[in-house]
């Protein structure tokens, strides 16, 4: 995994000292702080309380000890109810943080998310608020195969009324989750299973990362690379490699896909004239296509080469390591694509 990346440029300097926490620990701290701050915040999901002291990936660890089983609620295996009941609780003034263990299981919960959470406020003429956060983790790389390795953010991005968040660092994980919990809209908060162990600087105490503000991870003049989740880190590795050749990548982490900080991305492409969008989600109809389309619409005359997508192949994620690796976008793919763009081979 890439080395921890520094806090976002211009991030609110938090009072507390800066520790190196894992992504999972940072999320846990965000939940803890928000539950202390607001009694209407509670957590529900499968194995969030008892299992291993809290959560299959440790994100809810220790919360039941501090806040008790009323506010840290293990549920039966009922994904549709987890989402639907959380939406009903949010509609009536609670601020639930519901967990779907794997984003792959969202297929069972799409109705309450897309038809209820996303639409109630509009259908009711603005007379409702649905401040629910639905957490799940996505991503491949651990041999979990086709039903436990997907990245399905595009499903949610397509539905107006939802916000979609995809943190790539411990710093952002804490700040974005706190912002998501305080947001008065339904937020789909997508973590990445491979990032849970990633360590990075996380200030103690109060700070949030606003939804809708991208983070320029590295500046560069030649190619803009917009990466989601692990692809942010792979893009930074690719940038290191290419720097030796004098090719500079500008690496941007949108951090939230809805709302999308289109301005930061477009301004970067106006400077570099070249774009790569990279995610672990299937390429076909993935959110990368949306980012490419928006950039083309807004910066057509600045483009020196066709924007490229370095994404997962359009195949169910295979189990065996060589196949899984081949299905996923790799640093080498980013390097080769950036090189080809600069050399006008595309």
């Amino acid at each position, binding site marked *: 995994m890439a080395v921890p990346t520094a806090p976002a440029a211009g991030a609110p300097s938090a009072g507390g000292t800066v520790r190196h926490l894992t992504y999972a620990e940072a999320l846990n701290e965000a939940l803890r702080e928000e539950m202390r701050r607001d009694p*209407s915040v*509670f957590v529900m999901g499968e194995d969030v309380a008892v299992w291993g002291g809290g959560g299959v990936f440790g994100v809810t660890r220790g919360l039941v000890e501090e806040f008790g089983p*009323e*506010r840290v*609620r293990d*549920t*039966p295996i*009922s994904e*549709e*109810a987890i*989402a*639907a*009941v*959380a*939406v*009903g*609780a*949010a*509609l*009536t*003034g*609670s601020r*639930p943080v519901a967990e779907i263990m794997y984003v792959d299981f969202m297929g069972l919960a799409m*109705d*309450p998310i897309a*038809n*209820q959470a996303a639409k*109630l*406020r*509009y*259908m*009711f*003429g*603005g*007379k*409702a*608020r649905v*401040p629910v956060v639905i957490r799940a983790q996505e991503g491949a790389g651990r041999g979990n195969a086709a039903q436990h390795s997907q990245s399905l953010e595009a499903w949610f991005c397509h539905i*107006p*009324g939802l*916000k979609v968040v995809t943190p790539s660092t411990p710093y952002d994980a804490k700040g974005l989750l706190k912002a998501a919990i305080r947001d*008065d*809209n339904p937020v789909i908060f997508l973590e990445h299973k491979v990032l849970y162990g990633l360590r990075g600087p996380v200030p103690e105490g109060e700070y949030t990362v606003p939804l809708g503000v991208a983070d320029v991870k590295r500046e560069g003049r030649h190619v803009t690379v917009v990466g989601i989740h692990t692809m942010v880190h792979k893009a930074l590795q690719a940038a290191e490699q290419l720097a030796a050749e004098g090719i500079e990548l500008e690496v941007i982490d949108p951090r939230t896909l809805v709302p999308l900080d289109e301005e930061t991305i477009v301004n970067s492409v106006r400077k570099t004239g070249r774009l790569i969008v990279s995610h672990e989600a299937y390429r076909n109809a993935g959110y990368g296509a949306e980012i490419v389309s928006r950039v083309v619409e807004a910066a057509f005359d600045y483009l020196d080469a066709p924007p490229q997508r370095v994404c997962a192949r359009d195949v169910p994620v295979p189990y065996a390591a060589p196949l899984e690796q081949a299905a996923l976008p790799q640093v080498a793919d980013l390097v080769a694509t950036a090189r080809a763009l600069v050399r006008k081979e595309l």
Partner: protein
Amino acid sequence: MSLATDPQPSAAAQLSPERLREAYRLMLAIRRFDERALELYRAGEIRGTTHPYIGMEAVAVGVCSALEPDDYVSSTHRGHGHTIAKGGDMRRMMAELLGRATGYCGGKGGSMHIADMERNMLGANGIVGGGMGLATGAALTAKLRGARQVAICFFGDGALNQGILHEVSNLAAIWQLPVVYVCENNQYAMSARADWSVAGGDPAGRARAYGIPGVTVDGMDFFAVYDAASALVARARRGEGPAYLVCDTYRYHGHHAGDPLNYRDRAEVERWRRHDPIERLRRALVERGVLSAAEADALDQQVQAAVEDAVAFAKSSPEPSVDQLMTDIYA
């Protein structure tokens, strides 16, 4: 049906004459409102679809009469009756049906999405089973807050077979949530007969699978519905958990105005109409001297006038302006 939930035979008897008259007025209002809505739909003044509650008035009013004002209600695609029974404003309802800016949803929702959040009426719902999570979640909010509110989930016989009902029933039972699932068994889900679609044949029996009470009553009898609802709501309020209340009833009209109605015969409709809930309540109230026949007629006149007033209000209201298209998406 378990002792804990036996209706106090006295519950309905305890209702004051005022509340009984109010219940009767609400049932009349539902009927007259939906009769008028059907006319307007046929006249092309209502778009999309509208699902009349006619014939089922005792269910919505019987249940809602057993509630406190801040109790929650989730509704269905056939939601007009629940909104009126919860105290909703017919003017804003009719304006919504006609797609006017003065409607409950500013014209954005229409018949299937009328909500009255001030009255904790959590909305009609276009998804069969869509209200089940909302009511169960509302009950969870009440429990977490330590409020004494109860949530009612209205749903139809057809919705009995949606997986979400199984999931929320199990969850509400193990969490002991204050929610009562009220099945409006009007015998059909579009063309599907309940005696075919509901395996086992006993909706209330399904409640027992979760170890919670399942009570079946004559849904054409206001008093029967009110008594059972009072008992189950009181039980939920005491923190004793969820229950099913199954009300046997009937929809006099088609599923919606465009229903071919080729799946049932007139004779069946006539049989049910003989047990008309409004007629029955009227007779009972007149017998009890709560209401004279003349007063009952006068009440009907008042209600019809109120419905006409609602129609006039709606028709005189402006359509939403296009600059409202992109508002109300996000808070």
